[in-house]
């Protein structure tokens, strides 16, 4: 299992709900529920298709960002936090679910440390490369919902 690709099955079920089932429903509330179900299945299908690639792109972006934090910051606590985050990412499982959890947690830890230890321009400079990751992450999420990659 599976003989069929889950993403393809979800996509086709979503189309069936949208195009055939909804036309037979005369209750506005049930129609709304089925419409949401169809839309959710379509998004889940795209998530299944693109998630590994999007997570891998996030991983590369965060590692690059953490390296840049190390290069532009002298504050020991921040440098140590970035180094610890890099270690955790490099040792994380390749499974997208688990990897994404590590990426999110690592980024949160470093941003929190920057906020606690630095102020003004120094804090802004340290945060900047991590914002590249935040952008890559949100753009990836939107791509999984159907936005074309820029």
């Amino acid at each position, binding site marked *: 299992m599976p003989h069929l690709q889950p993403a393809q099955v979800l996509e086709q079920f979503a189309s069936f709900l949208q195009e055939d089932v909804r036309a037979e429903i005369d209750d506005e509330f049930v129609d709304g529920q089925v419409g949401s179900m169809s839309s959710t299945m379509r998004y889940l299908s795209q998530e299944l298709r693109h998630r590994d690639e999007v997570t891998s792109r996030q991983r590369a972006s965060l590692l690059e960002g953490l390296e840049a934090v190390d290069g532009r910051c002298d504050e020991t606590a921040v440098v140590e936090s970035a180094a610890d985050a890099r270690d955790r990412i490099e040792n994380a499982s390749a499974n997208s679910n688990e990897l994404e959890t590590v990426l999110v947690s690592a980024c949160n830890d470093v941003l929190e440390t920057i906020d606690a230890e630095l102020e003004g321009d120094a804090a802004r400079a340290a945060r900047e490369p991590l*914002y590249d990751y935040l952008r890559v*992450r949100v753009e990836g999420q*939107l791509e999984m919902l159907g936005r074309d990659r820029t």
Partner: protein
Amino acid sequence: MTLEIDDITGELAPYLSGRLADGDVTVTDLERHTEGWSRQTMSFTASWTDGGTERSERLVARVDPSYGEERTFDYRNDIQTEFETMQAVDEADVDVPVPETYWFEADQSVLGGPFFLVSHRPGTAPVTWNPRDRQSLYDSWDREGKPLPNQFVDVIANIHELDGDDVPCLEAKDPQTVVDETLDLQRRSFEEMNLVDEPAVNEIIRWLEANKPEVPETTLVHGDLRVGNMLLHEESVSAVLDWEMSAISDPMFDLAYCSLKYFAGKLVDPIERPNLAGSLVDREWFYDEYEKRTGRTVDPERLRYWRVFGAFRMMNSGVNGAYRYHTGESDDVRTAWFQYIVPGLIEDMLDLIEADRT
């Protein structure tokens, strides 16, 4: 709980008999509207005989079948307060179109929850995520004389003529307390209900904490003001609906909130005319006209703060929906779907704060 149409019709007719009219009232053409979440809205025609004359009227009932149930981080006003807010606006000497208010019924045995009755108003609420509705709003902006955009500004300006004394059901607080409490509530909501501790959102919270505005005055604020909560009929606003988030707060909140890209129809892809707030009014024109009509100054930084906060609160609705579906608190399919509003809103908030944070 979903109310069945036959049950509702069967309960409403005897309930209205002797209340809406002295004699028997019949209820027909009951229609349930899907836009409500836990509060359900339905319209129907009530008919009766008055001194030998047949009379009928289209009415709307709004019911809270979940009243009294524990609902995590439910920051809406209760349904009685929603009714009393509409009633206060209806009775105030301002030109804000609201349905005529009839009465609030606390007895839950009639429709399975407390409810209120108001008159039915003509028109439809545009769905800005629907390209056809969006195009219709663009056409209104492009139309000579801009009757609908002008009325849109008037409606908002007129709501903000009312203050805490005019709407006694809403608690009036010190302006800074309002800012502190609203942010604290939304921050705790995200912290307790998120299924993913998004680092971008934590950055947004830190920005919101660090940039709280000085609020010089409070007025009645609709709280969920957007073109999608207005009934439009023949190029005019026939009713402003959904007063369940109303508060005595900073009037700039309403301006900022109805300017969110999300409410102009952005979900995943950028919209065609992002400069049009609500797909209806050019942002700069809107703020300039609001200043002219109210004498207030639209402070761009306060406005930016409330745009970020408004997007954060909206995003929290998506986060909360996913949480309630995840925990089994709700089995409404729409709450599961609602997670998909989150990334687009995060993108908009990052656009607004990134220059300050990097």
